[in-house]
């Protein structure tokens, strides 16, 4: 098997790095959200692939099947996916508000240290 035996983890690591790079290095808020999604998805894949058992069947009780894949990671990740969607929604909504207030969602056009504490928006 060699390094191919850990194929799923390589996929996870590559996706994770792409996502992390996008979050850290990109100034555009929408791109940051996309990177965040990619980053989270890589973790979901890690969980799900950990639940797979080679030769195992779907985790449904039926005759003639002895080996099942582990259903627990799928269930956990279902929750995590919901959390991820909620985060994306909140993040995009905030990006819209930032654009309304500043006219831009590019980080380098916005102040570095968000110092405008006293200036009311409405």
């Amino acid at each position, binding site marked *: 098997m060699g390094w191919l035996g850990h194929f799923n983890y390589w996929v996870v690591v590559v996706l994770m790095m792409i996502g992390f790079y996008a979050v850290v290095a990109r100034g555009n808020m929408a791109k940051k959200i996309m990177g965040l999604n990619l980053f*989270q998805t890589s973790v979901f894949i890690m969980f799900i692939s950990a639940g797979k058992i080679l030769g195992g069947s779907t985790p449904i009780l039926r005759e003639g099947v002895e080996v099942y894949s582990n259903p627990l990671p799928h269930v956990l990740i279902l929750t995590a996916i919901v959390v991820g969607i909620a985060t994306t929604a*909140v993040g995009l909504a905030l990006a819209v508000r930032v654009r309304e207030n500043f006219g831009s969602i590019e980080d380098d056009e916005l102040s570095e*240290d968000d110092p405008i504490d*006293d200036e009311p928006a409405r």
Partner: protein
Amino acid sequence: MTLNELMPFSVLVPLIAAPICALLPGRFLPWLLAMLATLCSAVIMAQVLPAAIDEPIRYAFGQWAPPIGIEFRTDAVNGFIGLLVSVMAVVILPWARISVNQEVPENQGLFYALFLLAFSGLMGMTMTGDAFNLFVFLEISSLSTYALVAQGRAKAAPLSAFRYLIMGTLGATFYLIGVGLIYIMTGTLNMLDLAERLPEVADTRAVQAAFGFILVGVGVKLALFPLHRWLPGAYANAPSAITVFLSSTATKVAVYVVLRLVFTVFGVDFASSMPYGEIFFILGLVGILLPSVWAIEQDNVKRLLAYSSVAQVGYIILAISLLSVTGLAAGLVHLFNHAVIKAALFMCVCTVIYQTGSARIEAFQGLGRQMPLTMLAFVLAGLSLIGVPLTAGFISKWVLIEAAIAQGLWLAVAVVLIGSLLAVMYIGKVAEAAWLKPAPEGRPPVREARLGLLLPMWILIVANFYFGIDTRLTLDVAYEGARILLGGQP
């Protein structure tokens, strides 16, 4: 109903009250429901804590026994944190009502619904005995916190909330990676079960990586020094009530999560085989000094206090890096005391914002004569932050120095003392503007705040002195908690 059955309701009541709150019309009813729900949590925690000190209180959801099902579990450590969070919410809400009326005049039902969600998420993080469940509660509280921060009046509030969201989600996902790795290695998510099975696989790189991922992930949430970038903006731009609430609870619960995972789940032996103590020691030292210096430079008092919060996290991190009973007790007791101190300080500043509309240091000039009760409260809470004897802040610094001396760490003692001097400077800067400088010409005279704002503030000031003199509740429970954490299975 036994205590075991009662305990989960401290999380469930606010969780169920939240959607109802969103539907309630007007301003008074949502607030009343939020008040009742948090009061209910606080009463439950006050009942549970004395019993939990003797023996952990456990509740398995749906009658599924722990390794399979999810359990809530309360002992001296998280009972203490749970009581702290719920009591702080009860004290803050009456104060919050007045400032929220001014700052978030519309849709208060939704505002308090978010508040209750954030609160129940924090309580859930405290109570749960399941590593994945902790992630879910972490996200419940985080998501509602992002939305709450964005409610601030400042133009930059959504921007701060967005930056907090990016950092917070990265942190939570890091935590999830860590949990995934230890699940792959052990096949369980229950914390006690993990504690039993992890030693067998402690030498594997997966578990070591998991430890790192989890610490960095939660480190973002607790504003551990180099990961604190989200905090000043989020605190400075959030609505006043949320600043007070977050500063006294959110980072504290994150510290608890670190304690629980490092000591109960991974265990002291594993932590000392990793460079955990060394890294936290250095981050603690730098985290006390640098943010304190930054705090002195700030013109905006809310930001000044936010940087001071990062520095106070430095003290807690320094205390728990010592890996001794006294050190952990110092961390736990400072966690409690800092919550009381910082809530009082932020309340004073936010009361000034309520009266003058500004948190800039110039707005504080001459307030000593115009708002004497508020500014006196600020000075007294500031003394507690500095660590003057007879105040709560003195107790925690005393225990921390005691723990450092016991291990011969004179560098830590020196840094704690220098940190206190820096605190004198930034608190003094505000006090000087308020008491010694004349009010700027042309500003209409400012009146003293009304009783509804003053009363909760002074309750916290009295608490500051009470816990500085009578340490039975704080220090004894903290020592008990430290012993449980270091003794492995309670």
